[in-house]
């Protein structure tokens, strides 16, 4: 009789579970963006909470502490973006001026001819009918239309960011009350286990973020040093500090991120060295053709990535999450498939949280008689 009752309970639970998953699937398109905003707000809150708490203890006013920390952060980000955009715009303006001059077109065509001459015989015929300079004009035209689409996306991004900032401020203001209210819902029986679960999740997220931020900082510093070293050998790269910081921040997105800094460095190397004969004919280690120092830049970023992947991240991040590398890869693939690059950004901490919850559920199941 009891066995039959257990089966009925199991079937009932399965049905409720399946219905919940189905319901979530149906409403997901409507709630996913808001949930993503809340997740971002929670992560920002986790990063900023200790600064707000410390400031509050000194000035005895939570509101002003939250305002000071968020305004300070927004100001720092705005100054960085503004200064980067101004420098990049100056560089792009300079580049477009050079683009319009006849001599540049000749330079570019001669570079293409030189490159073709170095190609193996079987590849020489490819693309003979294409005028390289007009092709470049076409590419620049396409780039402009892409930029317009980008401006539209930027509007939506700004709106989302404003919402995330508002959510973050609300969470920072009331974090401890929210947490207390959440704890208030836990039944007496599971109270202490519930508290431990919340604490472990907080620790997991905060350790992961702290590790990631330290890893990002080290990638930024190593990239900046690497780019300066390349400049020492004549790479003529500008915006070095910006490229380094962007490489560090992009490093937060696993797998895809490391290439973002590299691409910006490529663009800057190309813009600065077009028309420079020596840069066009540059040979890496005096053996491998590396026009515009492209391969040198790539090699430098690969070395930085290897140091980060093999020494820094395992030391700072790996242990904080306590996941097997295979689980990290699976989590990244699932996150990337579900939400794209953002999913990859959150995949590892989310997997860590699921692991903590699983551990506590297993503990509660095994020790149900003690609760």
């Amino acid at each position, binding site marked *: 009789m009891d066995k039959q009752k257990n089966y009925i309970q199991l079937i009932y639970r399965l049905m409720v579970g399946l219905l919940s998953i189905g319901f979530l699937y149906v409403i997901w398109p409507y709630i996913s963006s808001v949930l993503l905003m809340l997740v971002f707000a929670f992560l920002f809150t986790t990063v900023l909470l*200790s600064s707000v*708490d*410390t400031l509050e*203890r000194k000035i005895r006013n939570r509101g002003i502490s939250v305002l000071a920390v968020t305004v300070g952060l927004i100001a720092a980000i705005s100054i960085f973006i503004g200064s980067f955009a101004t420098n990049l715009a100056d560089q792009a303006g300079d580049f477009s001026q050079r683009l319009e001059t006849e001599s540049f077109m000749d330079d570019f065509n001669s570079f293409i001819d030189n490159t073709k001459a170095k190609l193996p015989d079987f590849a020489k015929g490819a693309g003979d009918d294409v005028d390289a300079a007009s092709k470049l004009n076409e590419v620049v035209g396409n780039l402009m239309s892409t930029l317009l689409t980008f401006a539209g996306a930027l509007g939506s991004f700004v709106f989302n960011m404003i919402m995330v900032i508002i959510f973050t401020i609300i969470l920072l203001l009331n974090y*401890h009350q929210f947490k*207390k209210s959440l*704890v*208030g819902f836990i039944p*007496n*029986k599971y*109270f*202490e*286990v519930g*508290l*431990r679960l*919340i*604490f472990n999740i907080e620790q997991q997220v905060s350790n992961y973020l702290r590790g990631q931020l330290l890893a990002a900082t080290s990638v930024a510093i190593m990239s900046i040093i690497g780019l300066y070293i390349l400049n020492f050998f004549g790479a003529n790269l500008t915006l070095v500090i910006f490229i380094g910081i962007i490489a560090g921040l992009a490093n937060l997105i696993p797998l895809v991120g490391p290439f973002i800094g590299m691409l910006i460095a490529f663009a800057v190397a190309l813009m600065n060295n077009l028309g420079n004969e020596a840069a066009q004919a540059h040979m890496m280690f005096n053996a491998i053709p590396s026009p515009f120092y492209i391969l040198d830049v790539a090699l430098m970023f690969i070395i930085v990535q290897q140091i980060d992947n093999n020494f820094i991240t395992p030391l700072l991040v790996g242990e904080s999450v306590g996941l097997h590398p295979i689980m990290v890869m699976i989590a990244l693939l699932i996150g990337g498939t579900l939400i794209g690059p953002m999913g990859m950004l959150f995949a590892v901490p989310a997997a860590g949280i699921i692991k903590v919850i699983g551990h506590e559920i297993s*503990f509660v199941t095994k*020790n149900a008689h*003690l*609760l």
Partner: protein
Amino acid sequence: MKSPLWSNVFKNWNSQESEKVTALKHVPVFDGLSDKELVEIEKLTHERTYQSGEHVFKNKAPSEGMFIIISGSVEIYLENAGDKNILAELNDRDFFGEIALLDTEPRSAGAIATTPSTLLGFFRPDLLSLMERNPALSSKILTNLGAVLAERLRKTNELLPKSDD
């Protein structure tokens, strides 16, 4: 007649301290803490209500922190082969379970509410986060906690020769 303006400006001057702060003042673990510090501790505590006969925790259950009785009564007991051995009966402003602030060992006895009770819980996760945010305050609490445990050990030592007799 009192001006509403001035009474608003000075509203915090004669404010009554909360029942929770009053209860915290009676707990040796929070001895020597200023009113401001007690208010900070109050923010970290969790108020829970228990029905008569409801377990606060069972023996060998996972432990996370201590409880202070705001109102009601709690029985601390040990059960051996069905025999219930009552170790203590605690009432308003008594406290129990403070060892759990220091270690993660399971509870060494059970606690059950014998009347409808309101308890204030102060837990290890909150003490750990306080240690990061306010080391000075948390070191005062840890020193007090050490003193409470030392006192208990001294009393146990005094009882040992008697039990040998």
